């Protein structure tokens, strides 16, 4: 057990005891301290806290910049301290206010949100969106910074979720929304214009991949680009028309779908493959020298990354974003 002293203000300090292995974020939330958070896995940085005079566990500063580390910032969702810590909320990241320009429900599972361009970004990076002072989630960017005058997100609906149902039913065109970022390393690098590229994702994992594919094509990428999108059911797929149009304009782009639960008729026509992993292997067997982008749930990203690595892609050439994973 160890103690956390949460500094609300200079003269108001709250003491919270953590149980064995509990994170600082969890401990504070359980005691009713409102710390913002999003991914719970050390990605979105919305749970950032600061501690200037205590020892900070190394793993809670992974992915932070050298100056952030020096200033005592750490990710409270990954912080399991062994000793007492004095912590306070951070006001490091500037939030920008953006406006909802357009909202479209694409399928019963996926909504497209377009907001005003309140900050600079690269296609495929992600932003943290705030629903209220203490509820934040991260979403990847599908739009292009110079060709689109909006920032576009594709949001998948989780019925029991806190944030995504609000995108579907709560927020409206004209509303203001606070955003923060950008973050993430999944974006196109124009250094290898003739490199083959494999972009693969599940569901709304398409959002960053669509952004990256367009960025690559608009930057004059000449190498083959394979965009392989998986979904459990056919209803989970969206943007098929947009992708077809893109394919017509750019012959180097190849778009394929994989659906794991096909009904019998669909399976018979063989228009979709069921197993995205073996399909990827058939479509692009040798990944030596290829650039790989993977976006989706944890098990997909881990399994596909391993396969891509074993099929010849360099570790440094595999970029990935894990959308959801639940601490077990």
């Amino acid at each position, binding site marked *: 057990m160890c103690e956390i002293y949460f500094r609300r203000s200079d003269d108001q300090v709250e003491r919270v005891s953590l149980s064995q292995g509990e994170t600082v974020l969890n401990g504070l939330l359980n005691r009713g301290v409102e710390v913002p958070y999003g991914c719970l896995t050390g990605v979105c940085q919305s749970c950032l806290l600061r501690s200037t005079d205590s020892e900070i566990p190394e793993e809670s500063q992974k992915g932070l910049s050298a100056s952030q580390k020096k200033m005592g910032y750490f990710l409270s969702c990954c912080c399991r301290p062994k000793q007492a810590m004095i912590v306070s909320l951070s006001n490091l990241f500037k939030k920008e206010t953006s406006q909802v320009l357009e909202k479209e429900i694409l399928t019963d599972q996926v909504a497209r949100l377009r907001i005003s361009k309140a900050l600079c970004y690269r296609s495929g990076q992600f932003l943290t969106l705030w629903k209220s002072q203490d509820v934040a989630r991260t979403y990847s960017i599908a739009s292009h910074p110079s060709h689109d005058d909006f920032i576009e997100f594709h949001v998948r609906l989780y019925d029991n979720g806190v944030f995504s149902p609000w995108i579907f039913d709560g927020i409206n065109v004209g509303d203001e929304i606070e955003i923060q970022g950008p973050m993430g390393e999944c974006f196109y690098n124009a250094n290898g214009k003739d490199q083959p590229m494999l972009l693969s994702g599940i569901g709304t994992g398409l959002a960053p991949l669509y952004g990256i594919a367009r960025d690559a094509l608009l930057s004059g990428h000449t190498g083959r680009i394979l965009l392989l999108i998986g979904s459990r059911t056919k209803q989970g797929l969206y943007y098929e028309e947009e992708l077809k149009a893109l394919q017509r304009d750019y012959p180097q782009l190849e778009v394929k779908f994989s659906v794991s639960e096909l009904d019998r008729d669909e399976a018979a026509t063989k228009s979709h493959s069921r197993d995205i992993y073996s399909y990827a292997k058939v479509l692009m067997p040798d990944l030596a020298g290829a650039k790989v982008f993977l976006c989706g749930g944890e098990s997909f990203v*881990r399994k596909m*990354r*391993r396969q891509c*690595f*074993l099929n010849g892609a*360099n*570790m440094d050439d595999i970029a990935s974003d894990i959308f959801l994973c639940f601490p077990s």
Partner: protein
Amino acid sequence: MSVYEAIGGAAAVDAAVDIFYRKVLSDERISEFFDTVDMAEQHKKQKAFLTMVFGGPNAYTGKDMRSAHAGMNLTVVHFDAVAEALVSTLEDLEVPQGHINEIVGIALSVKDDVLNV
């Protein structure tokens, strides 16, 4: 000049790490030890391994190797598999035989510690 410098230092480690890690993951005798969820973290450990056996700068002692591998119940079979992956990586990279011998020598020098005997 140390063998580490002779084969190109940190750049040699970078060139070798993906090839070596791929071989290790594909070898059924040992893949389970390295097939963790966090590939990026594992990738770093592979680099530490290569830097060490190339005779590069590292702060590890035999005692560290003992504790790093304690509790894994490693046997000669495991050790040989890693050594084979190492040698075949170096051969893929066309490292001269003399250097390979030297590198294998370094690996053998910590064998007892790694196997905790």
